[in-house]
């Protein structure tokens, strides 16, 4: 088992980074009930960990006994029958699923599963009819229709089931759904928090972790806790005992983007742009989300830029990212950004050096 999973806090008490949120959550469910919840925050911040700990807090250890099922859904939508297959993770008390996997049919899945859960409500300890929890991941990727269909079912079946929604960006969740939930933002842990966690892990593993290394890992991981712990483990595999100046591994795609940024800065021409396009395609093929590519690329380019250009380049990066969100073919906009950058940079070079 990886350290990430091994040292994941199981209960709200043991949570290390989001202590405040954890206490609030604990108080929230002290009465045994809770409103619908919406967790949002960047990846690797600890949303899922909190949710799991919350479930455990609500239902006790039996919430951790989960099984994975590949569940076929048969939904009757008007005249036609739709068959969707979804992977669900469920325990006796809750069901987790990724409704956006169903593609454009996510709407039916969302409606159907809530109804189904409402049908067989479990009994709670006191013999009252309890409720089940439905954890929906990646709500921001749900289609608007699905989100709208969610809003009525959320209210109608609120007695039977609680929803815990989890997403990266709350702005992509419609207002109506947001207002029905208690929104909880999970920030990325601060660098100090990460260092604390890393030291904790190292201590548990009986390793000697130089604080400098911990700091560098925290720095490289971009305030992503999951990644920093994985990185620590990878470092350990590579070389132990640790040294303070040990090489900290960044992910391969990031390395690749560094190379890409170098390419862009060295030459600005349509020919180079074509090579860049091929590399961008490769990144996209390897399932790197385009907005991540753009952000990362901007970071790298910023390092090489003169300060007077930074503002402009940032502006254009934001511009093209916005367009990217509006459209579908990310490559067009990524490439347009690169071309724009090249154009700006080339003009700058000519102005400066003649």
């Amino acid at each position, binding site marked *: 088992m*990886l350290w990430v999973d091994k040292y994941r806090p199981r209960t709200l008490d043991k949570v290390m980074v989001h202590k405040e949120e954890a206490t609030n959550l604990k108080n929230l469910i002290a009465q045994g009930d809770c409103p619908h919840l919406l967790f949002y925050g960047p990846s690797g911040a600890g949303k899922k960990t909190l949710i799991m700990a919350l479930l455990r807090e609500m239902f006790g250890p039996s919430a951790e006994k989960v099984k*994975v099922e590949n569940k076929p859904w048969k939904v009757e939508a008007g005249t036609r029958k739709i068959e969707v297959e979804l992977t669900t993770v469920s325990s006796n008390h809750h069901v987790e699923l990724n409704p956006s996997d169903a593609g454009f049919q996510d709407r039916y899945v969302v409606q159907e599963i809530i109804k189904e859960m409402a049908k067989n409500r479990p009994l709670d300890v006191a013999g009252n009819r309890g409720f089940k929890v439905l954890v929906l991941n990646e709500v921001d990727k749900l289609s608007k229709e699905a989100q709208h269909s969610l809003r009525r079912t959320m209210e109608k079946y609120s007695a039977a089931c609680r929803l815990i929604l989890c997403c990266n960006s709350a702005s992509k969740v419609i207002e109506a759904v947001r207002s029905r939930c208690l929104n909880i933002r999970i920030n990325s842990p601060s660098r100090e928090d990460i260092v604390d966690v890393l030291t904790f892990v190292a201590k548990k593993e009986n390793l000697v972790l130089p604080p400098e290394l911990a700091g560098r890992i925290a720095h490289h991981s971009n305030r992503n806790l999951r990644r920093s712990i994985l990185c620590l483990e990878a470092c350990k595999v590579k070389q132990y005992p640790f040294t303070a100046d040990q090489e900290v591994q960044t992910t391969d795609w990031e390395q690749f983007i560094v190379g890409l940024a170098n390419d862009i800065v060295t030459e600005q021409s349509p020919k180079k742009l074509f090579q860049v396009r091929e590399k961008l395609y490769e990144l*996209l093929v390897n399932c790197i989300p385009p907005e991540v590519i753009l952000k990362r690329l901007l970071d790298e380019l910023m390092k090489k830029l003169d300060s007077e250009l930074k503002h402009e380049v940032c502006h254009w990066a934001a511009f093209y990212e916005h367009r990217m969100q509006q459209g579908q073919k990310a490559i067009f906009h990524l490439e347009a950004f690169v071309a724009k950058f090249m154009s700006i940079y080339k003009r700058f070079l000519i102005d400066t050096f003649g």
Partner: protein
Amino acid sequence: MEEADLDELEWMACQQFPPEEDEDFYDGYDDVPPPPDDPPRPVIDIGAVNSSTDDSSRKRLWIGEDLASQESSGNAGTAKKSRGSQSDPLVTSSKRPLFIPGMTSTISTQRSVFLSSSPAVISKEKHVHNGKQSSTLFEEPLLLPLPASVEEPRPMSPSRDEEEVEVIKEVEVPLPCKLPYRRAADIDGEYFSITGIDGDRVYAAKSEPAKASNNASTVRSKDLLGEPIAKMIERLERETFEQVIAASDKKIHLEGDTNETAPSTEHEDLWVDKYAPRSFTELLSDEQTNREVLRWLKQWDSCVFGAKIHSTSEEVLTSLRRQATQAHGNGKMGGRGSFNNTVNMNASFRSDRFNSDSAKNLVTEEKSTLDRPDEKVLLLCGPPGLGKTTLAHVVARHCGYRVVEINASDDRVAATLQAKILDAIQMKSVLGDNRPNCLVIDEIDGALSGAEGKGAIDALLEIINAEKKLSLGKENEMEEGFVRKNSRKKGAPVRRLSRPVICICNDLYAPALRNLRQVARVHVFVQPSISRVVSRLKYICGREGYKTNARALSALASHTECDIRSCLNTLQFLNRKKQNLKTMDVGSQVIGRKDMTSSIFDIWGEIFHKRKGRAGKGMRGMVEIPEIGNQDHKDFVRRYGLFSNHGDYDLTMNGVHENILHMRYLDPSLHKTVEALEWMGDSEIFSFHIMAKQQFHLLAYQPLPLIAIRGLVAQQERPDVKWPKLHQSCRTEQAVKKEMLSSWLGAMTASISRSLSPICLGLDMVTPLLSIITPPTIRPVAAQLLTPKEKDEVTQLVDTMLGFGISYRHPKQGMLKANYGMEGQSALALDPPIDALVKFKDYTPSYHQLSSTLCQMLAHEVEIERIRRDGAIRESKMGAVNPTPKPNVVGGSIKKDDGRTKTALKSTESSSQLSKEETVVANKKSDVSSSKIIPMQQEKPQPHRPTNFFERFKKSAQTGVTADVKAKEKLATLQRDSRPILYRYHEVLSLQFNRCNEHYGTYTRLSVEC
């Protein structure tokens, strides 16, 4: 009132001297009504302006200092309105009559408008007006349009009536006028006589100002016409057009009269049919193509007509024989001679010679190989209206065939078509026409798409191809579909397609034609030159008596892209409407544009390729539009039509995107590229929203980004446009990897996978995970040689791998290799192939590559561990049924301390307390082979033992267990259970263990680290 009359006169004059005539001259006429077939009056040359078309300049001369501003508005309504009421301010102010005492005239540009009105009508009308005449010198008004130059204003005649004076005053234009004289003697200089309707004869002097105007014209002609003549025609038409518009506002009774004399609705053949080329020489299509087609058809002659020629033209043959004997040396080559007479000659020669020959089989054999073209089918393709069908018909007729046509309107399912083809090539018309058939399958691409169309083409191909097969197996019996040769008297039936088949299509690359294309001879039609089309059109117009000019015709031809059918239909339509073909109309609604769909490469070509001087194409040269910017507008409209006709914006945009960076447009600071990419982005966002919101009417805006991009990047250099593949292939690959990620997620342990999503798996997990599972510290040695610490590491590693559902597999599981020695050579790869996620071009991933031996070892360990856990689950289930596990129950629960199994195993062996036999074939190939053997060889032991990696480390190799009956049963069930799995695993609890080689010898046994 009189002006009105004179207007009519002028119309009259126009009627007699239509504008096409070189000299526009207004002759007075005296006899009313003139007979319709009155020959044109002799032209009295006043020498006004000798150019027939320079109408505007002449007008200026005549009108004198007529205000230029009045010109446009004045011309519109002059004549007709003047008739309506004299007090009409517009009319009076704008009128510019020419006065002769007692008669007035207006120079009007209305000629063409009233061209259709017959003289009879006018004359009738004139009489009406005559009755109203107040005071005139003559009862019949006479028109003498005597031009006067601006420099020489003439005094008004004193004898005009009041109204005229008024008019003149208002206009304040001194107009040239001339008094007709009663006596010729009163005129000095040249004169001519005019006879009125009542027989009065007057004399009028011929004009003097000719000189002045001549001077003026010479002055003008110095700069060779101020504006191009096409422009003037254009403007003239425009003015006429405006006048028609103005005229249509007022209902004048003239129109009613026109209707009376509307052309009779007698039946008229379509010009297209009427003037379809009848002979080969009349063909309009490309000479080269014509000849090639003819040649191809002629190559059939010896096959189709071979005997005929022999029987008919004996003397010709004898005359030819001499030549034939000479040609006999290369007779086989000559058989396919390119000229029909050669072919004929050879054919006839051969038939003649062999007729007296006994070797008839030889004849047919030789003929079947010689006397037909290689390609049995001719495929003509090209855009509509270029004369493909006509060519086929004409050529076939030319060569003496009876054309049997199958076109799209016929039923063309496979069976019907086949029957028809067979009919056509086998049968012969009994009645009258005994020419051989030539099958023409028209529009083969259109109706033949789709499943049944495919069948139809297959039917055709079958007939063609079956012959080839038959020619291989010559002895075969005659089959249906292959006809007896025409010359049946020779007695040797020849099975083959013995009649030419011509297929005609528009789109050569239609999917249905793919197979046909390969066997057929293909001729692609190109547009005939515009001049050829125009000359033909001109000829037809001449024959039909339709007045037109070459410029308009060429504009029409270029507009329809030389589709002569469409040209003719348009002309005939206009002819029936008694309208003239005007250059201006060509671009307008009057003449419908063909809805042409271009291929996608044409679209890309249009975007990237700027043709050098569009004039070469004809548009600019032919249609001159006064406004400068109009050419751009025209181009815009054309491109818009082109792009929107194609319709597949997504594909178009992908192609642009993929090719744009290879185009060599001048763009040093990449501004153009940026802009083009922004347009692409716009288009993409736009199309996404159109699709998402289903607002398809907004698709109308989709061609615009393409046009904009074209404006940025179009070059004169011929672009090398490639089909866009990158985008599609990337999408496919991405989908594959996404699928892999999510299935990988499914394969993980639930406790791990629930906190992950596919995206963060790819983003955060893969790289560190790969580093973690490929530790550089593990030595590739046997497990028992590892230090305890290393063992611990390995155990942890295996645990991690298992938790994440990762193992090592051979890349191609389906491929089995029979020879056992090969096993080490194909490297083990990660399964699922997560290393693909960090694979980039020109980039080496940061994780450490494990040696293949280590991979094997790990794969093995993972497998053991998995089986153990499965067993543990099974055990726990059984344990749930049986709360007290007996020692002879398959023991998984005892091995809770996973990772310690091996040591446990050792103790088991030594203590004989617990025996654990793991029969694992570590290597996949040997394993699979053995698992294949399993079902049949369970009872029968086989001494073969495959060598594999793990055997090298084996110390106490032969560990066996003598299982008791119970254990054997258990074993059997286990074997059955594990059969689908490649690895076999036996866990047998037994108090005593035995070397039972006869039972286990089949398999490689492995006692790991005993």
